[in-house]
């Protein structure tokens, strides 16, 4: 025998005899034989004191009875599948796999970046979005103090937008919907907004702020009589619609594309301002020169360069009006203005070079 655990015929016979001895009471053999010794061993069984056996039984039964009121039906239901269904290995794997799949899908649905991909893979889509959740608020909020406040003999109106400072966090963690690059978003006032398909690396379009439709229909009525200007000539009637596409990066640097829709000669001048990091808008004034046409932007001193967006003429300049009504000429605010398909666009970004502004502008989807 090479293997010490190999069983000989004699071993097999011994094992059968042991089975026979233990399963029956056939233990009457001579003690000098191996089988007799086995029978002797099997008959030498220690026996518990009956009182101990009964006391232990009573103690254990009491424990079972104590458990009984606590063993409510839900516990039974939990126990049952573990001992029947759960003990079936293929079913256990299937259940585990299903739970993991559902968990994974839940996580993917919770993450905005993967939600659309997962939905497309599953063969369904989310409901069509008519209105975006308002990130930008306080339209027509006049808390920005224009330098024209002290000009008692001038008319002006202020259109301002305030937006949250931590926009990226709101979008990433709270699941705010965002405009899809390359699409055209239908606005509540009946128009639409082309969303540039290009964005600088790390940036994202975040929201759209639209001028209220009823104001447009009413011709954007003058607010001069109740403004801080304290007087001056009423604003001439005009029909203007301004909508803002708000974007930014993880550091919440601002990227804004404003779309101006105006009809014919309005005789208006616009001052685009950034009062602070979360507050921007327009000061609208009557044009001083009768020859002013369309949208006229009032900018401070500095370089104003003519560039091209596709084949269209455009103007590029640095700077903005600040909260104090001063023209800031540093290179933080980079502006690009051009006209395309009947609308005037004003693109402004923080710390963005001209090349990036041009790339954004040229990626506007055409009608």
């Amino acid at each position, binding site marked *: 025998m090479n293997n*010490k*655990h*190999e*069983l000989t015929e004699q*071993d097999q016979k*011994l*094992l059968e005899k*042991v089975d026979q001895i*233990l399963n029956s*009471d056939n*233990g*009457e053999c001579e*003690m*000098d034989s*191996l089988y007799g*010794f*086995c029978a*002797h*061993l*099997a*008959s*030498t*069984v*220690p*026996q*518990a*004191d009956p009182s*101990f*056996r009964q006391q*232990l*039984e009573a*103690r*254990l*039964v009491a*424990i*079972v*009875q104590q*458990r*009984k009121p606590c*063993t409510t039906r839900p*516990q*039974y239901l939990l*126990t049952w599948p*573990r*001992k029947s269904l*759960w*003990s079936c290995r293929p079913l256990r794997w299937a259940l585990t796999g299903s739970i993991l799949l559902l968990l994974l899908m839940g996580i993917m649905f919770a993450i905005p970046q993967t939600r659309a991909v997962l939905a497309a893979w599953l063969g369904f889509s989310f409901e069509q979005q008519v209105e975006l959740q308002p990130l930008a608020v306080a339209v027509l909020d006049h808390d920005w103090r224009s330098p024209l406040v002290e000009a008692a003999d001038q008319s002006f109106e202020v259109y301002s937008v305030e937006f949250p400072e931590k926009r990226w966090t709101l979008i990433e963690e709270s699941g705010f919907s965002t405009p899809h690059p390359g699409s055209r978003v239908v606005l509540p006032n009946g128009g639409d907004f082309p969303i540039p398909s290009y964005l600088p690396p790390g940036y994202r379009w975040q929201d759209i702020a639209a001028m209220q439709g009823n104001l447009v229909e009413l011709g954007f009525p003058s607010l001069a009589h109740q403004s801080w200007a304290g007087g001056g000539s009423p604003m001439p009637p005009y029909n203007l619609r301004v909508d803002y596409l708000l974007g930014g990066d993880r550091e919440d640097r601002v990227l804004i594309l404003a779309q101006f829709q105006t009809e014919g000669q309005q005789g208006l001048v616009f001052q685009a301002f950034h009062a602070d990091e979360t507050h921007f808008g327009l000061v609208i004034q009557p044009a001083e020169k009768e020859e002013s046409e369309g949208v006229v932007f009032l900018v401070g001193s500095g370089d104003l360069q003519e560039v091209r967006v596709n084949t269209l003429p455009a103007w590029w300049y640095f700077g903005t009006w600040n909260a104090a009504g001063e023209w800031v000429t540093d290179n933080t605010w980079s502006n690009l203005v051009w006209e395309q398909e009947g609308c005037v666009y004003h693109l402004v970004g923080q710390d963005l070079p001209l090349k990036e502004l041009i790339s954004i502008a040229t990626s506007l989807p055409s009608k």
Partner: protein
Amino acid sequence: MNIDQEKEWLARAPEDPQAFKRLYDHYFPRLYAYVSYRVGRVQDTEDLVAETFLKAIEKIDSFEWRHKNSFAAWLFSIARNLISNFRRQEQRWETVPLDESPNLQARKLLPEDVVMQKEKFQRLRKLIGTLTPRQQEIITLRFFGGLRNQEIAEILGIDERTVAAHLCRGLETAHRKYINEFVSTEERNRDEQ
């Protein structure tokens, strides 16, 4: 008790005292006999048997059926672990005084007095104590725990054939020693008389 009965009682045991009593009646004598041979002293045996059943009640919801005799293997595994801990503390195969040794069942034995029965138990226990630890474990589980080789293999985590081989070698060794030490002594005593 067949396997279906055992499964039914086991399913009901956590909340049905009667079902638990049936399991207790079935396993108590085997468990007691096995533990007695492993520890020797009645008080220690009773403590360990009680602790085994208490742990079994506590963990009975977590028991899973793997094969038809797996509950016996599970129950004796609890006992074996408790005995291992106990003997680790004791550090030796203790010789137990007669008055602290258990009584034996009267099955197929002539009605001898209590002292003679206890001496017989001590003699066999001492004999088993001379075997290898694995042989001791297998013989006590097989003869007093009433477990089959397959169940013993599961408890010890070894092959069933290995269990059978250890059982055969252990019995042969024990028998040989029994003849040499005890039978020869008895014959000499008879001759002297």
